[in-house]
């Protein structure tokens, strides 16, 4: 069911959500950079700039405490996390490429063992997506089978309309509940025309063919040239909406402290380094190969889809100018 939400009512909606005690997370300026962060007031939302990092950190923070411990004399106590840590949240203005990554992460954090840190937040969060009206050179969602108006992974999709305001489509129970709870702010959509959506300049890549090549070419001389420029900085994994590797470390002393999950990256040399000195991925091309393999083969083998939404952040940020879209497209033509 589609509804119209005026610009003014959009602000009112955010205001009401904030006032109700919910955590409202949206793209917001932070020292010149747009990031998904909690809003203090509706005016802070920035919808015309792509956030620097993805929306995943609303569910999977960069650094997260998973236990705390303390020691008194010989006695050690370990404290579990207070579920109040996970407030009811509305994630607003999520790019379709970020929203589409959320179900990809659901699969990882819920198969077999369930990571409740991710899943509790997920349960308590309503995702309000926003269709893209502008794409830049790095955007390639259409190449990996998504689109600037793709509703995947969201509970509501907003599309900007001519003259201001949004068309609003709720596409899950959570989304409908949010609209129903603020029904007075919404009106009939008749007569409102959506702005033209962005048109990323990328051709659709035949991902089946990519997968097929990856299935049989773990060893191939091209890997050296594909990844030779990678400097192993890990920036691509950091900004990726779908990368989910993490480290587990203790911070504190023997007497007291916390254990944390921190984002990590398979591009780092230490990632696979053994105590014996042996390193299965001893060279950077092997680590970059793992990145491509994981996204376009391993994840697919396990969960039946790709681990890339074409957001283009890794392309924008790579200090060595590596373009994953071009690499994958090349592979599709091998």
């Amino acid at each position: 069911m589609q509804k119209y939400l005026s610009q003014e009512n959009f602000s009112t909606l955010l205001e009401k959500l904030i006032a109700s005690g919910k955590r409202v997370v949206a793209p917001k300026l932070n020292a010149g950079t747009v990031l998904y962060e909690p809003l203090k007031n509706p005016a802070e939302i920035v919808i015309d700039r792509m956030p620097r990092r993805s929306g995943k950190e609303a569910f999977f923070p960069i650094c997260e405490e998973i236990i705390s411990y303390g020691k008194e004399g010989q006695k050690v106590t370990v404290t579990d996390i207070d579920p109040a840590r996970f407030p009811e949240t509305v994630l607003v203005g999520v790019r379709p490429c970020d929203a589409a990554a959320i179900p990809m992460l659901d699969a990882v954090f819920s198969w077999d063992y369930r990571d409740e840190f991710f899943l509790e937040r997920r349960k308590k969060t309503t995702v309000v997506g926003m269709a893209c009206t502008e794409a830049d050179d790095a955007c390639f969602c259409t190449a990996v089978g998504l689109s600037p108006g793709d509703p995947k992974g969201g509970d509501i999709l907003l599309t900007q309309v001519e003259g201001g305001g949004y068309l609003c489509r709720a596409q899950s129970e959570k989304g409908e509940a949010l609209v129903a709870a603020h029904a007075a702010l919404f009106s009939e959509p008749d007569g409102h025309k959506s702005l033209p959506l962005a048109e990323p300049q990328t051709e659709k890549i035949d991902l089946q063919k990519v997968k097929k090549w990856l299935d049989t070419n773990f060893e191939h001389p091209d890997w050296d040239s594909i990844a030779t420029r990678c400097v192993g900085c890990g920036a691509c994994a950091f900004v990726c909406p779908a990368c989910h590797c993490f480290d587990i470390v203790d911070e504190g002393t023997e007497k007291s402290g916390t254990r944390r999950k921190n984002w990590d990256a398979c591009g780092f040399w230490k990632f696979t380094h053994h105590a014996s000195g042996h390193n299965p991925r001893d060279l950077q091309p092997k680590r970059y190969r793992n990145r491509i393999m994981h996204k376009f083969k391993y994840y697919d083998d396990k969960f039946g889809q790709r681990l890339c939404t074409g957001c283009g952040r890794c392309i924008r940020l790579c200090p060595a100018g590596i373009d994953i879209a071009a690499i994958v497209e090349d592979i599709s033509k091998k």
Partner: protein
Amino acid sequence: MCDHTNKNIYLPYLATVEEIIDETPDVRTLRLVFQDEKVRDSFNFRAGQFCEYSAFGAGESTFCIASSPTRKGYIECCFRSVGRVTEALRRLEAGETMGVRGPYGNSFPIEDFFGKNLVFVAGGIALPPLRTLIWNCLDLRDKFGEITIVYGARTEADMVYKRELKEWQERNDVRLVKTVDPGGNGSEWDGKVGFVPTVLEETAPLADNTIAFVCGPPIMIKFTLPVLEKLGFSDGKVYTTLENRMKCGLGKCGRCNVGNVYVCKDGPVFTAEQVKRMPMEF
């Protein structure tokens, strides 16, 4: 087999260090008893599984469970001090507390080995993952045929579980062949001198109705597998364990994969046949 009852999958059980045994100057065994009685009763594992052991303030490390599931009331781990966590675990004294998450991973399908002969081949610090299985089998001795153990280390001092080697040597239902690398033999050495693959070839266990288990440094495994093949062992009858670096042990953190295989979930126990299908990433 997996314990999903903990809501927080990263929450460790608390365990008391009950006994400390120095195996070599830098390898130590800790015998651990869970502090919560319920955990003590319910903690079930199979030979081959591993845990994440933690020293609070230093972090977690992955080791196999080195004791046998047939020995109840405690578990043991055996580790070499190589870094932050292992050194912190080494500083623990008897009576002190550490954390344990697990058991994780798959295990040796021991029921499939009933009625068969067993050959264990281990090198250096890699005896612990086989020691759990060896005791598991010895505690069910009449279910198996002949049991042969080939164990090698650089020098006698580098051998772990020395007291148990002695016990196995004295048993007449186990054939123990121990060896040290050339030059590693002291004047009182009563075993063989030579690298594990060579000694295994000389020992020449019959492949007929026999399962082989190999754990050791990558170089030892590399040279041992062809020897087993020569002796007539097919790849499906040879088991090993992989030790890719791990963090979560739960299939989440993305650390341990070899190709599309998650060693923490699909392993750490694999047949040589499975390993040979994997890309060289271990």
